[in-house]
């Protein structure tokens, strides 16, 4: 981790982002982040390899945020976690027989939410910073403006952006969706603790309503993340 250069490489995305956000405040190229190395990343596909990077091997903030979103929402939540949940619910509904999934779901797959939660929280926190047109003033060519002009024009661009788009509502919906998943997860965990064996279908079936509520909350979260804009809008 290159903590003092305003860029990051390798390792945990969340830590990296945290550093990059700190570094952005330091000016210069602080807002341009080095691409993470997918070969050692935890998140996988959302982190594209070197051919992705637009400007001399550096990701601008909105690209970096989009990649983080893709890694969380497209790669993990929709194509991995929700699919596993749907398949598991069908096991509980006796439509599918999959002993392996029954054995592993509660111990291995379900807790992935605890590991991934921080990523979506981070996405929510960074959304307005990364996707506001204000971010343009921290990258070339607007980076060449005088600092006072950058600050002033950046604030104006940000205000207009917030006026034109329901930014606050998006952020609020996303935060609520995250806490919705948290609540459903806690309720599910609580329900599972009441059962004496979480590796048999009849016992798991007693928590079917809680599983379904958790699936619905995850599905709602996926929509709340998806609805956020995919491009940086220049008004």
């Amino acid at each position, binding site marked *: 981790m290159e903590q003092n250069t305003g860029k990051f490489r390798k390792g945990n995305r969340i830590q990296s982002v945290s550093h990059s956000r700190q570094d952005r405040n330091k000016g210069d190229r602080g807002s341009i982040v080095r691409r993470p190395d997918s070969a050692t990343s935890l998140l996988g596909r959302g982190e594209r*390899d070197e051919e992705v990077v637009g400007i001399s091997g550096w990701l601008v903030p909105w690209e970096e945020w989009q990649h983080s979103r893709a890694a969380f929402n*497209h790669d993990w*939540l929709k194509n991995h976690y929700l699919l596993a949940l749907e398949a598991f619910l069908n096991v509980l509904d006796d*439509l599918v027989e999959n002993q392996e999934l029954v054995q592993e779901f509660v111990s291995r797959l379900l807790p992935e939410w605890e590991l991934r939660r921080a990523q979506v929280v981070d996405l929510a926190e960074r959304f307005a910073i990364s996707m506001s047109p204000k971010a343009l003033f921290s990258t070339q060519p607007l980076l060449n403006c005088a600092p006072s002009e950058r600050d002033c024009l950046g604030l104006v661009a940000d205000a207009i952006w917030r006026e034109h788009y329901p930014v606050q509502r998006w952020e609020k919906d996303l935060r609520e969706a995250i806490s919705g998943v948290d609540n459903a997860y806690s309720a599910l965990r609580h329900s599972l603790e009441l059962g004496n064996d979480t590796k048999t279908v009849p016992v798991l079936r007693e928590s079917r309503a809680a599983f379904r509520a958790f699936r619905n909350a995850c599905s709602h979260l996926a929509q709340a993340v998806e609805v956020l804009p995919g491009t940086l809008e220049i008004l």
Partner: protein
Amino acid sequence: MISEKLPRLLIVDDLFGRQLPDGRINEDRAHLCGHFLLRDVTGDESSRTAKQIIKRPIAEVVFLRGQKPVCALPGDHVENDLEGTMRRIREGWDHGPDRWALVLLDLCFYTGRVGNNENHPGMPAGRSGDSNPSSYFGLSILESLHRELPNLPVVILSSKPRESASRAYAELGALGFLARADDKSRDQLIDFIWRHGLIPDDRREIIGTSKPLLLALRAARRAGADQRNVLILGERGTGKELLARYLHRSGAAGKDRPLVMVDSGSLSPTLYASELFGYRRGAFTGADRNHVGKIAQAHGGDLFLDEVGNMPGDVQAGLLRVLEHNSVTPLGSNVADEANVRFLSATNEDLEGKAATGGFRQDLLDRLREGGSVFLRPLRERLEDLEPLAEAFVRQAERANPNAIRRIIEPEALDVLRSHSWPGNLRELRSCIFNAVFNYADVEHLMPVHLQIDRAGTELHVAPGREAWPRPIETKFDDALAAIAGFEFDNIRPADIVGQLYKAETAYAHFQVGLLRAALMLTRRRTLDSPEGELLIHPAVKLLTGDRAMPGSKAADIVKRILGHSTSVKIAALEDPVLRSAYEKAIRLRPSSSRKKRVAKHAGGER
């Protein structure tokens, strides 16, 4: 809703189509199958070793990565494979019962170097263009499919936002969008299979899996989805009544609704109105009691009007009133009864032409096909179905004749059946098979010798009632001409022909090549030196054109023009020794200008 033989889907998707090394299971794929209730029949290691059992699968599925290598290790580079993908799709589209019912196509395919991706092992990190909606690889595949296999039903299966490429995939003929991880997506998939999929009749009342039949069944399901009237077109004996029954039971509300059948051909003009509209006692001489007409019987359901082209003019006017007012007034009554009826009409006539000449009311025709027309192709255009049909008819005949023993249909007999053009269609085939079984009840093998398919005789023998009239003997050539002349462009969507008219031109060019070859063979001059006959292009072209005064040079030009229509036509034609010989003769007679120059130059050099 879906037949015992499960529909076969193809999912083209980089994530689910990939294989993992060392026989590991593609867990994502197993979860997708568990979510949609699909039975994985891909045949790779992952599908063989998966221990998941889908108890009530809605379909079988084959997964295709669309990229190479299919199984990638860390450090490998994964690239999109359009050619290989198209080849695999073609293979599954051209071959019979396991034909793709529906293709589910991913949009975004990730390429590049494979890293250590814990969630999705074997997946590359992706390049910048991969996730750009304007350059999705899925759209490239869709474009190729749209151009080459326009009848193949394709639905987008993606976890990307649908609006990211909705215009592009709609323009390229995709029939819908299916979100992967949505709790409603399984029901949506079942609906897509039903509405867009090419699936056979679940009750096997209509037998066959050929593309023309499956397309007709799909059209019937779509038309049957609402309560608008449908017109069924097709030659006699193609199974229009069976299709009407299929359409009736395919509708969402078809379960308990009545289906009333009217064979208009069997009704005399005087009886037609009274049968259809009903009558009150005393309405006419002999009407000694009230009679409920067919329309009133069908209230709340469907009325099948066979041979609707035979309907007398006054009945047409009465039926139009029924359609306009949703009520029917029996003969001899002043009171109209409610008649909420869907009309399923059938004809083997050119009703449009008949309407143009005043033989049928145009306004009634428009009403009768407001929900669309379904065209049943003749048997000769779906010979792929001949074997299962023959098999089914043999079994029916054996059941109908207690003395008949069970037999197998020998390949030679099938060859004979396939070589016939079946102007009487399924009815003629059924009769031919029944005759074979009844006349030769005590044999275990159905052989060519058992089949009576003399065309004119068979027709006279099998066709009941009004269809037993003798008609001129038809040939395959007549069939071809009729198919070309009678091809209707009315129901073709603009998207189906835009940019494809060159295909019609090429097909016509091949047709002309075939004609030329036939003429060449017919006009061969047999001599002692050449018992097989010498090929002569001049008489062949005269025969083709009917121009007896045509000079030989012009005939040579025509041969050159037919065979040289395009490179593809020329290459295919010149593989045939007869056509190659004709072409060489034509070139000798009429060398091209560049060739003439070369010859002249060569001759000058010699001088």
